[in-house]
């Protein structure tokens, strides 16, 4: 790619500033319309994702092509609506194509044994094939300029003029308004369709409404993103939002935000680099947003989940250390420091990991270290007793209620002791009333491993 990079015309700074400040009227109009589109597709895409129908938009967007070309041919042949150049006419054709595709999807699903995935693949590829065949004919008709139709395939923000942008923006706003107005009903249908039906919501009608919104967003996105990639606007922001939250309202809001921001950035970028396909630029910016969300997302992000897991592991290790020291003290019957080597034998700790666990506990003020070994501080002793108590209560419970052999309970209790909430500990105590007052004795021999 070195040759390609060298040939790249990077825009000069004044150009960048002009685009970013939206000084240029056409850029401003296009960026605003594309942003609205991104916001609307974030909202509609969220519901499609929750409904587990993320890829329906892919089939429908491909199904627009034959509709668009037929609309163009009719326009060109009859001379109405600017000889097939009117965007409204073409988009109407596209919407009809998508609607027909949707009907075929439903028909295939209802009246054959083909599954959803096959129905999607069939509608997508056969409609697109018909579109390609029609397009090839339209281009050879000679009259009119069918070449413009190809901008619907990959999207071309540069070809969007003011009236087009107003149309796109209006479609997007209408969808957004509809999605917000129906928010409560749609959420219910997405999460519990049976319940929604049982309280009298017209689930089929709501699904149809969602499909109409999907078609409107899709055809509004054709000019900016193109029919091959408009699915990305409907899937990526919604999937990215899923990393940030577990509840539907915030998810739709985040998806709208990500969709809007990525579309704005992508449109600005393609205004700066007009040679590059605008749809692809918007998708790549959205993919970057997805990647960031996957890493840093507050709920399911990889980093956050790793941090949570690490915090848990550290807690578990610290509690094991405290219990090991306490048990060693019980054995010796003395408050003297416990040699590190004897602790290593209790659990299967590598010397290095034991050292780092001990260092962390020392920093937390739970353990005091001396050349003779490790000793518990006052806080450490309290914590160690609490932890050990939970461990032994659970062991006793397993022995008395689950008939686990005393020699086997140690490891079983290990898994659970760290997550026992106080209420459960209280219940265990009530159940094992005999041990209520004091620290229960270990029900098995405590030793240096198996």
């Amino acid at each position: 790619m070195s040759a390609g990079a060298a040939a790249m015309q990077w825009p000069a700074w004044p150009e960048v500033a002009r685009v970013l400040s939206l000084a240029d009227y056409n850029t401003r109009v296009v960026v605003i319309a594309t942003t609205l589109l991104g916001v609307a597709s974030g909202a509609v895409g969220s519901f499609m994702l929750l409904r587990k129908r993320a890829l329906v938009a892919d089939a429908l967007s491909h199904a627009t092509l034959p509709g668009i070309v037929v609309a163009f041919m009719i326009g060109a042949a009859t001379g109405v609506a600017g000889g097939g150049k009117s965007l409204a006419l073409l988009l109407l054709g596209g919407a009809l194509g998508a609607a027909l595709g949707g009907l075929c999807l439903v028909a295939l699903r209802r009246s054959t044994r083909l599954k959803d995935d096959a129905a999607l693949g069939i509608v997508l590829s056969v409609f697109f094939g018909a579109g390609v065949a029609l397009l090839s004919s339209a281009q050879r008709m000679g009259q009119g300029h069918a070449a413009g139709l190809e901008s619907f395939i990959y999207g071309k923000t540069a070809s969007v003029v003011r009236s087009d942008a107003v149309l796109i923006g209006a479609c997007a706003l209408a969808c957004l308004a509809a999605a917000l107005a129906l928010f409560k009903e749609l959420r219910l249908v997405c999460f519990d369709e049976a319940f929604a039906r049982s309280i009298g919501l017209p689930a089929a009608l709501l699904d149809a409404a969602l499909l109409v919104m999907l078609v409107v967003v899709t055809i509004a996105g054709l000019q900016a993103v193109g029919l091959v990639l408009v699915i990305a606007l409907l899937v990526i922001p919604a999937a990215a939002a899923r990393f940030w939250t577990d509840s539907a309202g915030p998810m739709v809001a985040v998806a709208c935000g990500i969709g809007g921001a990525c579309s704005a950035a992508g449109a600005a970028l393609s205004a700066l680099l007009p040679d590059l396909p605008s749809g692809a630029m918007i998708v790549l910016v959205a993919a970057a947003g997805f990647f960031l969300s996957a890493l840093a997302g507050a709920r399911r992000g990889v980093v956050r989940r790793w941090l949570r897991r690490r915090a848990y592991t550290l807690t578990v290790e610290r509690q094991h250390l405290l219990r090991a020291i306490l048990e060693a003290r019980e054995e010796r019957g003395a408050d003297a420091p416990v040699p590190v080597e004897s602790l290593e034998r209790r659990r299967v700790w590598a010397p290095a990991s034991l050292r780092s666990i001990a260092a962390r506990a020392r920093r937390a003020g739970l353990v005091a270290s001396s050349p003779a070994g490790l000793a518990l501080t006052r806080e450490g002793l309290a914590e160690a007793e609490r932890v050990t108590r939970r461990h032994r209560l659970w062991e006793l419970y397993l022995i008395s209620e689950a008939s686990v052999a005393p020699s086997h309970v140690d490891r079983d209790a290990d898994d659970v002791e760290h997550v026992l909430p106080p209420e459960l500990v209280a219940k265990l105590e009530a159940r094992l009333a005999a041990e209520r007052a004091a620290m229960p004795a270990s029900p098995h021999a405590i030793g240096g491993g198996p």
Partner: protein
Amino acid sequence: MIDAPLGMTWSLDGWIIATGVLCAVACALPGNFLVLRRMSMMGDAISHAVLPGIAAAFLVTSSVASVPMFIGAAAVGVLTAFATEWLRRRGRVDEGASMGVVFTTLFALGLVLIVRGADHVDLDPGCVLYGAIEYTPLQKVSVLGVPVPRAAAVLAPIALANALFVAVFYKELALTSFDAAFAHAAGFRPSLMHYALMTIVAVTTVAAFESVGNVLVVAMLIVPPAAAHLLTDRLAAMIVLSTVIAAVSAAAGHVAAIAVPAAFGMGSTSTAGMMAVAAGGALVLAVVLGPQRGLVASRLRRRRLRHSMADDDVLVYLARARERGEPALAAAELGRRTGSRAALVRGALRRLAGRGAVEQRAGDWSLTERGSPRAGELLRSHRLWESYMVERAAVRPDHAHAPAELLEHVTDADLRRRLADETGRPTTDPQGKPIPPQG
């Protein structure tokens, strides 16, 4: 040599059709398993996702379908499958959405690469989507001294390799497709088969890419196997049928690309597009005319069932009337008693009269000697069922009629004998009406 029709020439159109057939067959073979595994959209995802691999290899080697391209594509195809799976598992993203994220991103990347490199190489974005099968005969290579279009020379070994793969791993593919858990327990490796299949799909996609482009390759992968799936319940038959449908669609597609626009006075259109449309037509035919599950077949079956039930109803109500001392009934009265539409009753009477089971006298209908045995069987079934339900299933006597009304139609002699044995061979039903003797 025979002249080809429609102004086609063997040297040009013959090769286009041959290339199309090879492409369609190569795709349909692995496509069967995509359809059966409910992974059809994975074919779509992979065919989009290989674009950056194709673009990069193209920019480096300046040729399509080269060895590096196949290696790159196989790698990207497996990567797509891995990335989708990883996002689904680790990121807990919905499967469709994770596919959507991965393939749109890779496709967008590939597009930017192609447009950036467009100054250096002639691979235009249009060709990415719908291929250029019409131009394949122009670029020939010599195979054993015979000039063969390069695309055909590439697709033939791929089709052969796919056929070999399906034949050699037939058992593994079948088992992992139908019951992955059992296959795993039996010592097969479902995930290995999964990624092997993904590799095959990716390589096939790249080979087909030059001819039909990456959207229409989905039609070749999915549509013929889906059509075959509607025609048969046996895997081997489905695979064979899918390749036949694929080959016929490809050939018909090229002919249609020339013939259909000509009918409107226009020049020929895109062969790849028409191949997809022809495959779609084959699917519609399978949906409508399929022997078992086709719309026509199942409608006929339902109609036949409705008719035979109407015939039975007329017979059994005529028999009941005779029992009560009414030798004949008007058609309207029969309709009222059986609760059927007048047209249905008229049809039943016409059919039964044709068989000599009923006869009309002075406008009213009565049973004949020939109709009596069947009427007796039905009445016996009905009343045995009532006895059985009242005695054995604790159904209240006045509630037994409605279910018996349905069951009488599907009860044969053997079942009647067993019902009689179970209920102690009664001679009257719970209402005290006589049960006709075994015929």
